């Protein structure tokens, strides 16, 4: 074959490819899932593209949650926004307030004429992302809730029952002291996400208010209130336990140093997202891991209530063509189908977002084969959510999370007491909420 023939053949096949791609409507999807989760995410798009020929979803990894969100916002300002962007739960307030920049999911589904039944979704998950009228604004994608992981080998070495997870904070303290005294491990427990686990979920779990107006669901005029006596008592204990070595701090944000402390058997117990389950099991080949619900103070009335979620949802940005929006609707329907959801839930440890996916996983025998995999769901649905425990929604919450970390660090460094730290969180957080209210 001569060069010109090869070139001609190449051109023809290239043209064929280009025209095939043009026949399909392209849907851009920006996400923040790196590593193994990223592969699973891309696999969802591949499966959708293979299942139909009308649309092609192009996933694109855009870095951390913060980077993805700010990137999408910058792109929107430049008129180059993707159709779908994955936004973490603390960005919900910002996205919701951006009327005109987003297309609410319920409206998208109605416009596209897609079959859509909001009641099929788990209320504890969807409640977080609906407006006061109960309309679903964004598509739940990866939701998780914090749970307790513990080292069964350390428990056994300390003379504790390895099958018995600590139930209350009194248990956690007593178990920790026994673990430390017996030399089974150096410290009792550590935690990821201090803000999410030890303040927000702690409050919901004890049915304590996080903010006025139903934790901010009722409007932008909300104010933070999580400096109540129950939260103060808990932070006081954490500071004391840190002094005594019972608790070890894993750093701000997600707490990057917390997992290594549990994996290296330095700490016997560890609280973090249910989506960490796969990572925990992969990193702990040397010992057995037990899973339990979050601990609670048994003298607090109403505890345990239910835990709240974290994670991210998919938001549809305005500006796409009707054809693109129809494609997005089809993709969302694909994502929420029981088979896809059940697979995603089992692969990643994220919660199933529909009742059907949960039931399918159960029917497949997944929970029987993987003890502890349903702890997160049982904990989230332990009781019907109250106005204190259905979630939270505040503007500028990304920054407020930063404030929580800072004040917690001040507390542990001994420069402020628990009441002072939480009062400062509330005062600084409220200033940020007022700023957000003024700008929107």
């Amino acid at each position: 074959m001569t060069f010109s023939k090869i070139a001609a053949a190449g051109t023809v096949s290239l043209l064929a490819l280009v025209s095939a791609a043009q026949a399909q409507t392209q849907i851009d999807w920006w996400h923040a899932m790196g590593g193994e989760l990223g592969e699973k995410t891309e696999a969802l798009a591949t499966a959708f593209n293979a299942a139909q020929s009308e649309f092609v979803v192009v996933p694109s990894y855009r870095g951390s949650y913060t980077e993805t969100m700010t990137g999408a916002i910058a792109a929107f300002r430049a008129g180059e926004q993707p159709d779908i962007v994955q936004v973490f739960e603390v960005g919900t307030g910002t996205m919701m307030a951006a009327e005109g920049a987003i297309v609410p999911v319920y409206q998208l589904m109605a416009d596209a004429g897609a079959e859509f039944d909001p009641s099929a979704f788990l209320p504890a998950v969807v409640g977080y992302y609906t407006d006061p009228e109960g309309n679903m604004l964004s598509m739940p994608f990866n939701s998780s809730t914090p749970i307790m992981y513990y080292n069964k080998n350390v428990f056994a070495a300390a003379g504790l029952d390895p099958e018995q997870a600590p139930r209350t904070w009194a248990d956690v303290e007593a178990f920790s002291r026994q673990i430390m005294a017996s030399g089974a491990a150096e410290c009792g427990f550590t935690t990821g996400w201090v803000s999410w686990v030890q303040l927000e979920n702690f409050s919901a779990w004890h049915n304590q208010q996080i903010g006025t107006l139903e934790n901010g669901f009722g409007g932008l005029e909300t104010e933070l209130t999580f400096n109540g006596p129950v939260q103060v008592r808990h932070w006081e204990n954490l500071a004391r336990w840190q002094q005594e070595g019972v608790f070890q701090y894993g750093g701000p944000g997600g707490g990057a140093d917390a997992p290594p402390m549990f994996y290296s058997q330095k700490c016997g117990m560890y609280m973090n997202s249910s989506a960490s389950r796969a990572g925990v099991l992969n990193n702990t080949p040397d010992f057995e891991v037990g899973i339990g619900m979050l601990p609670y103070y048994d003298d607090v009335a109403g505890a345990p209530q239910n835990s709240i979620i974290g994670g991210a949802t998919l938001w549809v940005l305005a500006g796409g063509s009707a054809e693109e929006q129809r494609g997005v609707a089809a993709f969302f329907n694909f994502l929420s189908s029981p088979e896809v959801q059940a697979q995603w839930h089992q692969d990643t440890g994220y919660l199933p977002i529909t009742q059907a996916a949960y039931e399918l996983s159960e029917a497949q025998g997944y929970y029987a084969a993987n003890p502890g995999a349903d702890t997160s769901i049982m904990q989230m649905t332990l009781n019907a959510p109250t106005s204190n425990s259905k979630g939270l929604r505040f503007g500028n919450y990304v920054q407020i999370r930063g404030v929580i970390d800072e004040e917690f660090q001040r507390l542990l460094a001994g420069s402020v007491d628990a009441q002072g730290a939480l009062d400062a969180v509330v005062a600084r957080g409220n200033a940020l909420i007022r700023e957000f209210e003024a700008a929107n």
Partner: protein
Amino acid sequence: MQTKRTIFGNKGLPYLLLAPQLVITAIFFLWPAGQAVRQSFLREDAFGLSTTFVGLRNYRALFDNPEYLDALQVTVVFSIATVVLSLSIALVLALAVDRMLRSAGTYTTLLIWPYAVAPAVAGILWWFIFNPAIGILPFVLEQTMGYDWNHNLNGRDAMILVIIAAVWKQISYNFLFFLAGLQSIPTSLREAAAIDGAGPFKRFWTITLPLLSPTTFFLLVVNVVFTLFDTFAIIDATTGGGPAQATNILVYKVYDDGFVGLNLGSSAAQSVILMMIVMVLTFIQFRYVERKVTY
């Protein structure tokens, strides 16, 4: 100082020759700086859907904000420590290499190496070395001195960490310029002084240091700008401004408020203030410090 003057026949030619530099300055400095100034007078939501003119409100809010004043103080401590340490260590190293007859090339290469490492990579390196949970240094400190290093909680530890990381990065650059400066000092001057009976210290203070002053001055300006702007990646990769804002220098706060917090007005006002600070500092340096420089 002697000035050279060139006479151009064509009036347009000098402007044409200046044009590329002017265009670059306009596109990469004047335009974005102008945008920042404009933005700093506005209050806007993240998506740019509603914009209100608020005058100097963003600036006033900053100076009423204790955290911003803290960040200013943190920046001063960080900048002075980094500039002084990186200049003095680099000078000592350059003096040492300058005296070497053999293997000076090898040492020079090794000392310049850190400069080739991207700041973010350097930051990760330090993050691993100093990590309270898995790092080698906290382990050694604990074993040998019983010191409990924890830059996640202790603001002073965190400050030491970022200063070490920034100094380490900047020593190479300073070293290279100092070495070149030292090598351009004629040996005959130092020999003459030695014959006249001046000891090594006397020679350093009266001959080497004054003749090195143009280099030192240049490095001072560049280093101050480095600590104010280029240390962003180091902070981001090691402490993220924490704990409790103990290492939140101005440029990091600009990023954090603007890109993480999406408070664009305040972030723009901060970058305008930062720009003014650098302008004033550079002006002072040229106006007052340069007088002490012997060219």
